[in-house]
């Protein structure tokens, strides 16, 4: 028994295998996180909530359904979801999902590169929604793009803050910096950038202070509205992709900014395998925090979003300033 | 423990408390006596401090030549204003009037107390506290008439001046920080210590402190562009308060700037503090000269003249020649005398005509046989005409600016002062000398509103003539001594 454990401990995973594991964690963990959070959210609202594994059932059911295409829409309608899903498969390769050290493909793109890939995914979904010709889908797409443009400056400043703190633009480097000392965690530049990014994630995962991320009120929909016309496998890909995007953003927030602990420091099988539940556990906790926030504040009117995003921008800008002036 | 210093700090305070309880006549007498006594006490400090000694009472009070220079105009105006007030004040009958009188006299004494204590305070922190106290008391005094204009002016004044003083406090704290490099973490901000240690202060920090202090105290002093409260407060306040604000309060704030200047030049050399003062000074002089050409309101006219003179003080300081500094200090005293007298005259005009509108006041010298001509003389004094003290002081400032190496700013100064002279004298002669033609002019009977007003004005003009014709030897010694405290190698 002991011998086996130590063998397991000593066994090293090839970097390529870890990269695959990264993707698999995100791909198969994402519906789980959505399910757990939806369940807890239901409890918060006094309901029993859906089953934890419900997203998996939904996806498998959708994959078995037929695919309907609106009259007059072109191939873009069907390709959009696939492109988006592919993008969500690429991003996990760039960020510290399981390991503290950079994996070979981790140097393929920096934090901006990851941002671009995420933006491409959003673009693909939006184009597919626009192609459907349905008013609500187009409304959702145009809103998503507008708010995306408003969030952009904040993300840029967060990136700047990360960049000047670590003198690199690699997410791995920031996570390593944060781990290096307690002083790094309390330094204002880091705190401010982390909070700003927290707000960005809040807005970007459909928890935005104006959006109802679940439910059927079309006027309050943004992300959900975009997929109204899709069905069958493409719809499943969109739903899955949106769950993955949520987990990716959670992962960046957790493993880069807030709590980069529990990651594997080596390629040992044991530590890498331990990192998976650690990440999912942290993601569940974070998801609960978001759910609590989402349910304890009333939604704002749509145009009030500028205030919310102005606040996020303020924090991100201050992060850069504070660092610039005094190394705070 | 110097008894005179203690008396200077206690007498006006005692007067404040007494006048809160006594009826009007007694209050008048107490205020006048307190003013005269304090003026006498501060004159008695001239010989000792002029000889280069400084006096102290405990860790709190300290007087050197520079403090006494600023005490003189303040305490003189205290006494003169007290006399003027006796003739000026017309409170309504009954309980409301009694309350008004009580507030007025207690307020005026408290205001003067704070202004007397400010130059005596030993250290930048206490100085700041004293000046902030002058702000809050005088804001209440500006509002005391309870008119729309007075309320607006008081609100603007207290807001702008408090903000300025907030900046000055920041400057004080930054300077304190500079000192911690030399004296360790904890020390008091007394002048002797700061001046002695200044050469070892970190330069960048002192630079920041100097800018903040000039901006902060400059707000209170009325330097453009942070002068915005000044014309409103001066024109809407009761005239005795206007006289004190203009002649004494502005000087007190200038004193704060000079203390920072004194420390800054020792820490970072003269060029930076000089340039800061020059910038503010030129802006003030230019803007005031232009505003003086387009005034409709007698008291606003005098207020902008104050801005002009504060600009002259700042520019004079920026020349930093020994001669110019003596001129600046003399200018502080002479401006206090002249501006006080001019406001007293304006008070007589306002009482007589019931308006401050320059278009409706005509033939003042005929209507007011004494105070009318004296107002004209005071305005001529403000325009730096001989034989008044301001002529001598401005002459010294310009001469200092032209002494080696000649400074082109001196020429600009002369041009702008001339421009201001046109504005000031144009309107004053128009109202005081020209006979009424338009139907706007008010018809009023000939006669003085009160003898007290005349007495106060005579005192002021006498002082101006003395300063203009021959500065008494001991005073001259005091001025040179104080200038040497501020002097720097150019």
């Amino acid at each position, binding site marked *: 028994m002991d011998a086996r454990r130590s063998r397991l401990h000593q066994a090293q995973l090839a970097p390529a295998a870890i990269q695959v594991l990264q993707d698999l964690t995100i791909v198969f963990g994402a519906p789980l996180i959505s399910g757990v959070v939806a369940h807890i959210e239901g409890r918060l609202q006094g309901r029993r909530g859906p089953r934890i594994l419900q997203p998996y059932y939904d996806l498998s059911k959708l994959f078995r359904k037929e695919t309907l295409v609106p009259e007059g829409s072109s191939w873009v309608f069907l390709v959009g979801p696939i492109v988006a899903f592919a993008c969500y498969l690429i991003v996990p390769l760039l960020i510290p999902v399981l390991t503290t050290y950079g994996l070979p493909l981790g140097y393929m793109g920096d934090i901006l590169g990851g941002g671009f890939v995420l933006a491409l995914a959003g673009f693909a979904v939006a184009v597919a929604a626009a192609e459907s010709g349905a008013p609500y889908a187009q409304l959702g797409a145009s809103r998503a793009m507008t708010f995306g443009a408003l969030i952009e400056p904040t993300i840029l400043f967060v990136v700047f803050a990360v960049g000047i703190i670590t003198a690199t633009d690699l997410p791995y480097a920031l996570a390593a910096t944060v781990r290096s000392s307690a002083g790094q965690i309390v330094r204002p530049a880091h705190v*401010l950038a982390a909070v700003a990014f927290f707000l960005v994630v809040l807005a970007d995962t459909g928890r935005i202070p104006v959006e109802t991320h679940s439910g059927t009120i079309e006027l309050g929909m943004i992300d959900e509205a975009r997929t109204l016309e899709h069905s069958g496998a493409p719809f499943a890909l969109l739903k899955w992709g949106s769950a993955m995007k949520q987990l990716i953003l959670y992962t960046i927030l957790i493993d880069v900014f807030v709590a980069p602990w529990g990651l594997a420091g080596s390629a040992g099988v044991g530590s890498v395998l331990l990192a998976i539940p650690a990440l999912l556990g942290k993601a569940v906790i974070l998801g609960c925090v978001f759910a609590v926030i989402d349910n304890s504040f009333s939604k704002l009117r749509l145009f009030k979003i500028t205030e919310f995003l102005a606040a996020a921008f303020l924090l991100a800008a201050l992060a850069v300033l*504070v660092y610039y002036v005094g*190394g705070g | 423990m110097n008894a005179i210093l203690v008396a200077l700090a206690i007498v006006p305070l005692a007067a404040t408390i007494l006048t809160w309880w006594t009826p009007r006549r007694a209050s008048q007498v107490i205020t006048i006596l307190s003013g005269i006594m304090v003026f006498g006490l501060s004159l008695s400090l001239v010989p000792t401090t002029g000889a280069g000694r400084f006096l102290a009472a405990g860790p709190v009070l300290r007087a050197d030549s520079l403090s006494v220079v600023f005490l003189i105009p303040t305490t003189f105006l205290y006494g003169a204003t007290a006399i003027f007030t006796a003739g000026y004040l017309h409170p309504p009958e009954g309980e409301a009037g009694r309350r008004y009188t009580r507030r007025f006299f207690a307020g005026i004494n408290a205001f003067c107390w704070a202004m007397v204590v400010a130059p005596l305070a030993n250290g930048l922190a206490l100085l700041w506290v004293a000046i*902030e106290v002058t702000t809050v008391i005088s804001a209440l005094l500006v509002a005391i008439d309870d008119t729309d204009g007075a309320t607006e002016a008081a609100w*603007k004044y207290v807001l702008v001046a408090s903000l300025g003083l907030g*900046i000055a406090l920041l400057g004080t704290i930054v300077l304190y920080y500079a000192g911690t490099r030399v004296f360790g973490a904890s020390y008091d901000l007394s002048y002797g210590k700061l001046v002695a240690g200044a050469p070892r202060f970190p330069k960048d920090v002192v630079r920041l402190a100097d800018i903040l202090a000039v901006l902060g105290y400059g707000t209170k002093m009325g330097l453009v562009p942070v002068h915005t409260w000044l014309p409103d407060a001066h024109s809407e306040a009761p005239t005795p308060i206007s006289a004190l604000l203009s002649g004494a309060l502005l000087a007190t704030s200038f004193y704060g700037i000079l203390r920072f200047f004194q420390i800054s030049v020792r820490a970072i050399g003269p060029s930076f503090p000089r340039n800061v003062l020059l910038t503010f000074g030129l802006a003030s002089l230019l803007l005031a000269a232009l505003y003086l050409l387009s005034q409709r309101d007698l008291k606003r006219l005098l207020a902008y003249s104050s801005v002009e003179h504060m600009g002259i003080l700042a520019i004079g300081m920026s020349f930093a020649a020994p001669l110019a500094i003596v001129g600046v200090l003399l200018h502080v005293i002479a401006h206090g005398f002249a501006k006080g007298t001019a406001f007293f005259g304006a008070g007589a005009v306002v009482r007589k005509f019931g308006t401050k509108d320059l278009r409706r006041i005509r033939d003042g010298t005929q209507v007011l046989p004494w105070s009318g001509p004296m107002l004209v003389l005071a305005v001529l004094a403000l325009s730096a005409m001989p034989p008044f003290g301001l002529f001598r002081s401005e002459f010294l400032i310009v001469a200092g600016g032209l002494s080696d190496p000649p400074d082109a700013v001196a020429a600009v100064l002369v041009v702008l002062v001339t421009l201001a002279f046109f504005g000031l004298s144009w309107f004053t002669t128009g109202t005081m000398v020209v006979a009424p033609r338009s139907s706007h002019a008010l018809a009023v009977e000939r006669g003085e509103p009160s003898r007290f007003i005349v007495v106060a004005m005579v005192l002021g003009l006498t002082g101006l003539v003395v300063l203009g014709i021959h500065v008494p030897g001991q005073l001259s010694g005091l001025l040179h001594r104080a200038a040497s405290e501020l002097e720097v190698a150019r």
Partner: protein
Amino acid sequence: MVHPAPSTFTGAADVISVLVLLSEFAMLRAPLLRSQIRLYAFQSLVVTALAIVVAASQHIGELYVLAALSFLLKVVIVPAIVLRFLSRAEVDLAGSSAFGVATMTLIAIAVSVFGFFSIGALHLRSTALPSTALAVSVAVVLVAFVLIVLRSDVVSQAVGFFSLENGVSVASLVVASGLPLIVDVAFLFDLLVAVVVFGVLMRVHHGRTKTLSTEPLDQLKG
């Protein structure tokens, strides 16, 4: 230019001072006068906390006294005075402002950028100097200016001044923690006097115009 991480104490002090700045921004945003006053109380509480942190880390016993006094004055008395005035005034409890919230925030950000850069331009950087906190306090002062300029009611303007004083307090705690207690107390006493005078003038203004808006205050020009 990679700066090493500050010590935990400096970092904590910096974060607290940034909180002061953020509450200043929140005041700029707060539409209701009452919430503005509560934010001021919160800001003062943060300043008090900073005083305690500084006192504990630098072993300056006097600062505990100062913290207690400033808590009493700025967290309890001043907000109570202003709130009482508001509840008596019973008019327009929502302040007015010249611009929308996002615009005001951007203006204030621009202004604090100026503050940060002007402090940064002084090259005060050194191991001993908490220049972040100094820059933050300058930014607080500047944002308080923006607040006073852009909000057009007497209560907001008065609160703006009080919060400016909080900004200066941050500076004095961080760069001049050794300031003699008596001087600090004098400053606080002075604030109290100023509060009373602001209160009197606000009451006079309200008594004359029956409003808290500063719009009637445009008679004096030129």
